[in-house]
């Protein structure tokens, strides 16, 4: 499959709010986005039809709802942001769809169901719903189902609250489809989807004396197949794999992944740029990928001492770390994702650039998500950042990069070459049209 030529740009300008998470569901039919205003917008892929051949697989808005509201913690005198940090879909079990969405403190399970038929011809009710006088009913009729305008309803089915003192950074649904984990800066909790008043604490790295704190949890994920295995990453660039069968509290890891530091490139910023912002298992469950500030690393779960592959995302920033520290960009948390076949990985960068790496051919490409440079159905042009003195035509120099335009959230369709890229408050969906 040729992932390097993408067509079919669909730009959906959302409201003024910044998109904070993007996630396809298991089939890829639905795409959910969460934003800083606590809203969730779900897109649905249109079915192919002969009437509209060009609209093959376009994503249109399916449902919009307010998932989280700003809250005020009166005891601590602190406002709790309504920003959606993560959305994770649950596997579909019936006609309705379910997802988990979380802000800093509270996780909610939402059920999204649609109605596109209504019953008409009730015996005991009028068309407008008023009860009919039973004595006036002289004949029986069978109600019929008539099509109606599709109505999509989202309702909160569970609210999982008060289990996190620190800010939730990850949620992950377990392969048993019954439990899920949530992680904040210092703890990881395990929940049962049906039980909201209790959760099990499975990792706790909070030191007895908070002044001794030097490391926090940055991301956590359940293994895609082994329901007893999960990983969590840290701000020191380490990943710990834990087995829940080993102990109730998984403070001691089963595996510890860390790449030894390269002493020649050590600087005051080494630790900060080694901090892992995202960790994702491959679909096969054999590998996992981590994103730190400058690179993406693929790890074989059987090898702890170094990654099997390392991809440089924007190495040209290494000489700018001091400025990036000053303007806080060095703390940006980029996410990363696999394609369905685990043959390619994608992650974002600055200037609305995002990068894709083909693991087999070792080719990589830089693309830009911007309206000026893309028209619908146009092929995306590869971009290049010039690092040396000479800047070629069409190249952009490092100093001209816009560090306010950062692509932190991207998602890849689980089966096809369709990607969703969030650029601040715009969502871009790219598809690869194979002739």
């Amino acid at each position, binding site marked *: 499959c040729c992932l390097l030529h993408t067509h079919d740009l669909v730009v959906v300008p959302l409201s003024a709010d910044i998109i904070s998470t993007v996630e396809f569901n298991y089939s890829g039919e639905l795409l959910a986005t969460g934003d800083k205003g606590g809203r969730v917008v779900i897109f649905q892929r249109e079915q192919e039809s002969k009437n509209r051949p060009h609209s093959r697989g376009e994503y249109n808005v399916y449902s919009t709802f307010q998932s989280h509201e700003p809250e005020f913690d009166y005891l601590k005198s*602190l406002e709790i942001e309504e920003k959606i940090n993560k959305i994770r879909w649950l596997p579909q079990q019936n006609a309705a769809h379910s997802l988990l969405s979380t802000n800093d403190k509270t996780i909610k399970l939402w059920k999204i169901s649609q109605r596109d038929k209504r019953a008409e011809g009730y015996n005991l009710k009028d068309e407008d719903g008023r009860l009919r006088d039973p004595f006036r009913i002289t004949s029986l009729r069978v109600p019929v189902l008539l099509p109606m305008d599709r109505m999509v309803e989202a309702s909160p089915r569970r609210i999982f609250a008060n289990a996190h003192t620190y800010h939730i950074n990850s949620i992950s649904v377990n392969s048993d489809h019954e439990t899920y984990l949530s992680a904040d800066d210092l703890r990881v909790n395990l929940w049962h989807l049906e039980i909201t008043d209790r959760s099990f604490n499975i990792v706790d790295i909070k030191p007895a004396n908070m002044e001794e704190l030097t490391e926090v949890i940055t991301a956590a994920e359940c293994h895609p197949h082994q329901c007893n295995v999960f990983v969590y990453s840290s701000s020191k660039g380490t990943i710990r794999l834990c087995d829940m069968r080993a102990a109730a509290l998984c403070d001691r890891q089963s595996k510890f992944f860390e790449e030894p530091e390269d*002493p020649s490139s050590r600087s005051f910023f080494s*630790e900060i740029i080694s*901090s892992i912002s995202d960790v994702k298992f491959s679909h096969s469950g054999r590998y996992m990928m981590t994103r730190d500030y400058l690179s993406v690393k693929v790890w074989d779960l059987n090898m702890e001492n170094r990654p099997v592959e390392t991809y440089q995302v924007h190495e040209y920033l290494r*000489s700018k770390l001091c400025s990036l520290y000053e303007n806080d960009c060095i703390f940006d948390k980029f996410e990363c994702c696999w394609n369905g076949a685990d043959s390619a990985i994608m992650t974002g960068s600055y200037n609305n650039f995002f990068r894709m790496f083909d693991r087999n051919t070792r080719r990589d490409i830089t693309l830009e998500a911007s309206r000026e440079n893309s028209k619908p159905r146009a092929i995306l042009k590869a971009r290049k950042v010039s690092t040396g003195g000479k800047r070629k035509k069409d190249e952009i120099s490092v100093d001209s990069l816009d560090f306010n335009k950062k692509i932190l959230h991207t998602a890849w369709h689980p089966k096809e070459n369709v990607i969703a890229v969030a650029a601040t408050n715009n969502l871009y969906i790219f598809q690869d049209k194979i002739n």
Partner: protein
Amino acid sequence: MRKRGSRPIYMPVRRRREKANMYSKGTKRKFSDGVDNKAVAASYSLQRQSLLDMSLLKLQLCHMLAEPNLCRSVLIANTVRQIQEEMAHDGSWQVVTEALGGSGHGPSDRLVDTEVLCQSSEQQDGGPRLYSVMGYDGCREEEVVTDKALCSVVVGDRAPALLLGTIGHCWDRGELRVEDGVSKDSGTGEEEGTKSGEGAKMATGQVFGTFEIKNGAPGSDPALEELFSDVDASYYDLDTMLTGMQSAPKMGPYDFLDSLASSHGSVSNSSCRADLNELDHIMEIIVGS
């Protein structure tokens, strides 16, 4: 005791051509004896100092936000620690400690020595001591020009002013206890160097103290006690008891007590009971009975 202003001829400095990439590549220093050593060293110290200042500024500012990002705070604090450790290792810290008549402790011992920090009762001034974030190289004559500039920028204007502002802000909010016992004597160059190290250490140590409520020992300073006599500590106990979790105080810039008290977080039984009575009282008020 090393004469003030003298320095060894051979001093670990960065090679000149790596100077430009101090932040990108390793800050490994090479043992070399070129004539540029002093200039390079000064430039490197300056850059390192400015990084330290920037980091401390960030730590202060993040305390003013609603709820600081813990990951970011931890990373910045670790950076500050790293800079401190390097400053200790390259000998600039040692001059300071020797000047203080150090009892033979190594430079790194001074970093963790909280004895000085605990001398809160011997505070001279009524107001808060300033944490001067001055370079440790301040005592060297050769670099006097550079460091004077540094002093005038840093000590006079920036960090201490901010610290003052922070401290004042902290008091306005009726924070539990604010003590900033630093070294007792008024500042000579060496002492300010000490203070800066400790200030930085306190900054890093206290960053996370604010994320926790500590029921520390009562303050030993009667003046401060009087100041805070109307601040009800049991408010926070209420939270702990109700939620069973430890909660964070609102924007307390520095929970000074954390780093000052030698024992942390242990609450005596009697104070618990007293707190429980207060708790009942508060509950009555809350439920409006």
